[in-house]
Each structure stands twice: as C-alpha cells, then as structure tokens.
C-alpha cells in the first residue's frame, strides 16, 4: 500500500523517534541493573544505614560509570539520530544527564508507550468488544464511541510525546554531554583564526607567485625586446626616417610597458620585500613617490612575511592616496617595532578630510589590516594634516 507523502513521512518520523526512545529506555535498564545489585546481596536490609548504603553505593557507582554511559549515549545519538555530540564532556553535567535527565526521559517514554497501548485499546473497541460480549463498563454504543474518541486522543498524545521527548533528549544531551560552551567557543575562535591565517597566507603566496611569474616571463621578454629595439635604434643609422620613427616609438613603448609592469608588481608584492625586507622595499616605494617622502624604519628583526606584506601594502596605498587626494607637499613614513607590535605611521601635510567610508583605497586598507588582527586609525581633520596609524602584530 502506497501512502501519500505527508503521512508516510510522519510514520517514518514516528518510527525513528520510537526506536530512539526505546533505545534510551533500554540504556536505563542497564542503569537499573547496576542499581539493583546491592538489593540482591542485602536482601533483607532494614536498618537505616543499610538502606542509605544500598542507595548511596549504586548511585555512586552509576556516577563513577558516567563516562561509560556517556559513550553509550553518544553512540545512540549518532546511530539513531545522526547527531554527533563532540567531547570532552564536563563531569558534573554528564552525571546530571545520566542520573537525572536520561531516566526522566525514559520514564516519559514509558508513559508514552503506556498511553499508546491504552489508546490503541480504546480506539479499537469496536473491533474487540463483540469478541468479549458486552462488559459492564461499556453499557452502550455511545460510551464505546466516547472510548474510541478518547483512545484516538491518547494515541495522538502518545505520538506527540514520543516526538517531543526525542527532541528534548537531543537538546538536553547536546547541552549536557557536549563540551563546555565557553571552551567550545574558544576552540572555535582558535580554529577560525587559524583558518583565516591560512587564507591570508594563501592570498599572500598567490601574490608572490604572480610576481615571480611576471618577473620570469613577461618582464624578461619586455626587457629583451626593449634592448633589441634600443640596439636597432643605436646601430641602424642608415634607415629611412620613417623606419627610425617606428623603431623609436616601439622602443619608447616597450620601456613604458616595463615601467607599467614594474608598477603593477610593486603594488602587488615586490621581490625586494621577500629578499631584503620592509626597510629596503619601503625605500624603493618612497623614492618613487611624486612628492618628497621622509622614511624612518627601525626594525631590529623582521616580522612575519604576511605582516611585512600588509605593512608594505599599507604604506603603498597610503602614499598613493596622499598623491591622489591630499595635495600635500611632503609626507613622512615611520615604521617602528615595539615588542610584538609593528607600528606604521603615514603622515602628510595636505588638506585632510579623508574619509574611509567614501569608497577610497582606504576601505581595502582597513580590510587588509583587519585580516591580520591589526588596528587602523585615521586622523584627518579638514585642513589637515592627515595621519594614518596602523598597528600590526608581528607574529601571527
């Protein structure tokens, strides 16, 4: 018989919840087995200390066995519910789950099954009543109808209860058998930090790779081409005027292409940064700026490569911004390492009024600084001066 989808899904859900709940009840029978051991030995224990002992001892034993129960419960959740509860569990909470929550839910489960059986009996009264004659408590068909309705209602309650208990169990177990939420959060933060560092490093490595590829490929070819054109220009003196012009033009364009490519690489990740560090890379940058830049770099030792790359990018973008927007006559770049902090300050004497919100290069800057947990501070009152202060952790 093919049932329509919705009832079929409901039945399937009921089957899963029921199996899950019954397994939970079965685990509690294990617990009862442990509880009952002393009662088998002291069979006529009457004195108060003996009773206390008979209760305290098995409860203590259950508490001690809690990790084993937790493991069993975890397996039950994973196998029957598809819920993986990660460890490590906290002692107090797993004891509370195993001694209080799980037995309570098992009791609820038993109640649900009792309701289900009684409900089934009531609902099917029209089927079995003719077989047993007419008992005294069923004087009329009307009462039988009431009983059927009551039975159906109980079945509905049992159905609901089994589902609700399964859901409740999942929630309680995840909370009580799982790891400390604070620790879990800490672990997650650690995990994410690690992963982000990986992403940032990967992006960095990619920039380096592009730089190398450009250097080994296009750049070499362009230089070679410019050299050949230069040679032609220098040696072929008996060419017609027009041919000379064409060679001249080509030579100039080849040199411009080299310059453009160099600028691109400089904005990306220049080789000098890896080879010689921030100090050397920044002096190249400062020297190429279109306004006078004073540079002071004080680095007793090199920071992590990713941090160097970010610091370089910060100076590169900031100087580009100064050139484009600040109308400054000079700029000053200071890079100092104090302990584990790399401090990069770019100051100019321009018109100020820089706003990171207005989609300038500053937005990208803030993002890149944030990617290594750095801080970005901008002071740019109208009329200037503009000071950008970036602090980066030297070790990631």
């Amino acid at each position, binding site marked *: 018989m093919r049932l329509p989808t919705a009832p079929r899904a409901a039945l399937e859900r009921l089957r899963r919840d029921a199996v899950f709940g019954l397994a939970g009840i079965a685990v509690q029978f294990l617990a009862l087995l442990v509880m009952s051991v002393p009662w088998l030995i002291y069979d006529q224990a009457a004195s108060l200390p003996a009773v206390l002992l008979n209760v305290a001892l098995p409860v203590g034993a259950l508490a001690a066995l809690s990790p084993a129960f937790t493991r069993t419960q975890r397996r039950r959740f994973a196998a029957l519910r598809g819920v993986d509860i990660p460890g490590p569990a906290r002692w107090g909470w797993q004891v509370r789950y195993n001694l209080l929550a799980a037995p309570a839910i098992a009791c609820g489960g038993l109640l649900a099954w009792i309701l289900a059986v009684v409900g089934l009996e009531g609902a099917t009264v029209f089927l079995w009543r003719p077989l047993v004659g007419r008992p005294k408590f069923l004087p009329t068909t009307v009462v039988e109808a009431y009983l059927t309705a009551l039975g159906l209602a109980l079945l509905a309650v049992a159905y609901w209860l089994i589902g609700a208990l399964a859901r409740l169990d999942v929630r309680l177990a995840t909370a009580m058998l799982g790891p400390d939420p604070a620790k879990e959060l800490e672990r997650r933060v650690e995990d994410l930090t690690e992963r982000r560092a990986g992403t940032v490093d990967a992006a960095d490595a990619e920039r380096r790779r592009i730089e190398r590829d450009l250097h080994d490929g296009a750049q070499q070819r362009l230089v070679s081409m410019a050299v050949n054109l230069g040679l032609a220009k220098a040696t072929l003196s008996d060419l017609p005027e027009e041919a000379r012009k064409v060679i001249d033009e080509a030579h100039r364009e080849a*040199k411009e292409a080299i310059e453009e490519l160099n600028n691109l690489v400089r904005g990306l990740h220049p080789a000098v940064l890896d080879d010689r560090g921030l100090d050397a890379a920044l002096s190249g940058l400062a020297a190429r700026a279109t306004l006078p830049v004073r540079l002071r770099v004080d680095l007793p030792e090199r920071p992590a490569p990713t941090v160097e790359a970010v610091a370089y990018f910060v100076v590169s973008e900031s100087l580009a911004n100064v050139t484009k927007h600040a109308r400054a006559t000079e700029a000053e770049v200071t890079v100092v390492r104090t302990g584990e902090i790399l401090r990069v300050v770019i100051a100019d004497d321009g018109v100020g009024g820089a706003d990171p919100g207005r989609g300038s290069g500053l937005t990208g800057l803030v993002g890149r600084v944030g990617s290594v947990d750095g801080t970005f501070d901008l002071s740019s009152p109208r009329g200037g001066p503009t000071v950008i202060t970036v602090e980066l952790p030297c070790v990631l």
Partner: protein
Amino acid sequence: MRAVIAEDSVLLRIGLVKVLQTAGFEVAAETDDADGLLAAVEEHRPDIAVVDVRMPPGFTDEGVHAALLIRRQWPDTAVLLLSQYVEERYAADLLTAHTSGIGYLLKQRVADVEDFIAALRRVASGGTALDPQVVAQLLVRRHRDPLDRLTPREREVLEAMAQGRSNAGIAEGLVISESAVAKHINSIFVKLDLPVADGDHRRVLAVLRFLGVG
C-alpha cells in the same frame, strides 16, 4: 676590451652580449651563477664583469658578494652590477669598499642602449655608475644633516656626481656651463666640510657623505 657576463636570464644575457659587442667589447665568457663568474674572471682577466645581483643558487645577493670579491682579488677587473630592483645598502657596501670601477644599475637601463654603453665604458675605465633610483632612495633617508644646507641645484649636481658623471657630463645633463658646475661642486665641498685635498678624492668623499657611508 674584454668582458664576462653573469646573468641567469637567458633572454637578457643574449641582449647583453649584443649590447657589449655593439659597444666594442669582446665577450670572453657567459655564465649564469657566481661560481662560474669567479672562474671566468680568474681565467680571462676581463676589463669588466657585468653581473646580475640575484643568481642561483640562493637568488638573493650572490652578485654583490661576487663583485666585492672580484674587486678585491682582481683589481683590474671592473664590475657593473645589474638588478631588478636597487637596494641602497648594496650601493653603500660596494662604494665603501671600492670607489672605482664599480657600477650598480637597474636591469631595465640596458634598454637605453646608448646611456648604458656610456656607463659601461665609464666603469670599465675605472669610473662609477650609480642608478638614479639609488640616489633617489638615499634621499628619502636624509633627515637633518649637512645635506639639508645644499640648494636644490647643488643637490642635483651631487646626485649626478654620485651617478659617476664627469663635470662635462653633469653640465650637459643639467644644461648649465661647466664652470657653473665647478662652482656648485666647490660650494658643495664647503657646505659638507670636506678637507682640502686633491679634487678627485674630495669628489669621492662628497659622494660617500651623500650615500651616508662617509
């Protein structure tokens, strides 16, 4: 005149050979690493070695070390270093040790064939050639010091001196007369408190002071 070339990029090496031959040099050997270079210099005793700074195996500053070694061991061989980028500290290292027969240029300058050949000849005959970029990079480090007392024009003259140009070359480059150049140079000597000595030595001292190594 004879030259050896040490450059690991094949394309640029081919170009360099052509440029050197155009300039009238005989290329005695081509190598692609520092060891090969030293062996070639030992064997051929060339007038000049044209050397890439970044070579195998380390791809960092093998060329600079080789250049210092060559200048010490074979003083008759001048060295012209070529580099993808310039590092002013290399320039300082090179010029503190040797103030003649040393050049340090960006690779892309080779494309300006005529200027490059002029620099090549200057270095081969005991002069110096410093890339303008080195000079610019040195300027960004200058803070309050005697160099601040120079006028912009005097500074230009000093930059040109640092690049290794003669008075005539400076005059041509700045479009001023040679006597004006001489006047500026004298003024530079005075402002930098350089001792009275023979002209060439003072000139070198001025450049070294400018490079921050004197």
